[in-house]
């Protein structure tokens, strides 16, 4: 399995501590994501956004979380055989984990390059396939962790701090 990490230096130690011993979350939300189910894809991210909004998270942080989460949810829909998203809400940040049933990413560094896409015709017809989803997740997250390999499942973990 290949592994990719990107951590905002500002939160480096908090992120490392967190992944060393993952504490129990205050709130947990989970959703199934169906293969090529573009009708329902996005509902998980919308629910996360609405929950955080109710908890008083500010609009700019909400936008970052919504954009990163939606891109990852759409990627599971568009590129995998389906999977799930699990969102863990903590006091100061959210962790959203996407796990799917494969077929995996052969070269994660290449997948991160803006413009790189293997989207099929159906996915392109839906308006996706610009190769900008993973770069958008990178830009809007404080930590991005991807674990995958060709023929294996993909795990994408996104951590975003609420700020002030």
């Amino acid at each position, binding site marked *: 399995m290949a592994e990719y990490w990107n951590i905002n230096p500002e939160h480096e130690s908090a992120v490392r501590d967190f992944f060393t011993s993952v504490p129990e979350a205050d709130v947990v939300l989970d959703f199934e994501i169906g293969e090529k189910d573009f009708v329902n894809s996005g509902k998980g991210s919308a629910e996360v956004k609405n929950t955080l909004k109710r908890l008083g998270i500010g609009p700019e942080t909400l*936008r970052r979380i*919504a*954009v990163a989460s939606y*891109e990852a949810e*759409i990627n599971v829909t568009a590129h995998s055989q389906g999977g799930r998203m699990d969102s863990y809400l903590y006091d100061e940040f959210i962790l959203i984990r996407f796990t799917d049933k494969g077929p995996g990413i052969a070269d994660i560094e290449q997948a991160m390059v803006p413009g790189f896409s293997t989207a099929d015709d159906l996915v392109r017809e*839906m*308006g*996706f396939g*610009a190769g900008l989803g993973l770069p958008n997740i990178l830009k809007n997250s404080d930590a991005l962790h991807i674990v995958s390999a060709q023929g294996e499942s993909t795990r994408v973990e996104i951590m975003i701090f609420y700020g002030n």
Partner: protein
Amino acid sequence: MIMLSDYLALIDGTNLTPQLDPTQIEIKDAYVSDMLSDVMGSAKPGQAWITIMKHLNVIAVSSMTGVEAIVFAKGSAPDPAVIDKAIEEEICLVLSPKSVFELSGILYQALHK
């Protein structure tokens, strides 16, 4: 800044979501693209989104980025299910017979005069 209602008058626009009031929606700028992840990465609240894409995902993209108005070019209208979802999310949908180029030019002029 102009109100969406003033822009509608300039583009032969129809409000597909009459439950929402275009005289209350401020337009400060626009984003023009048909690639949804491009819009996800660059569109901002206060912008109108001018596009020819019209399936359900455009509503989610608007909602995630905070875009309050979508202008569908070349008279291609979305399905009723898309309109219902937009009303639920409070995103105003506008239909115009004009091309993306004309829609952008007209808005640019209105914003910069």
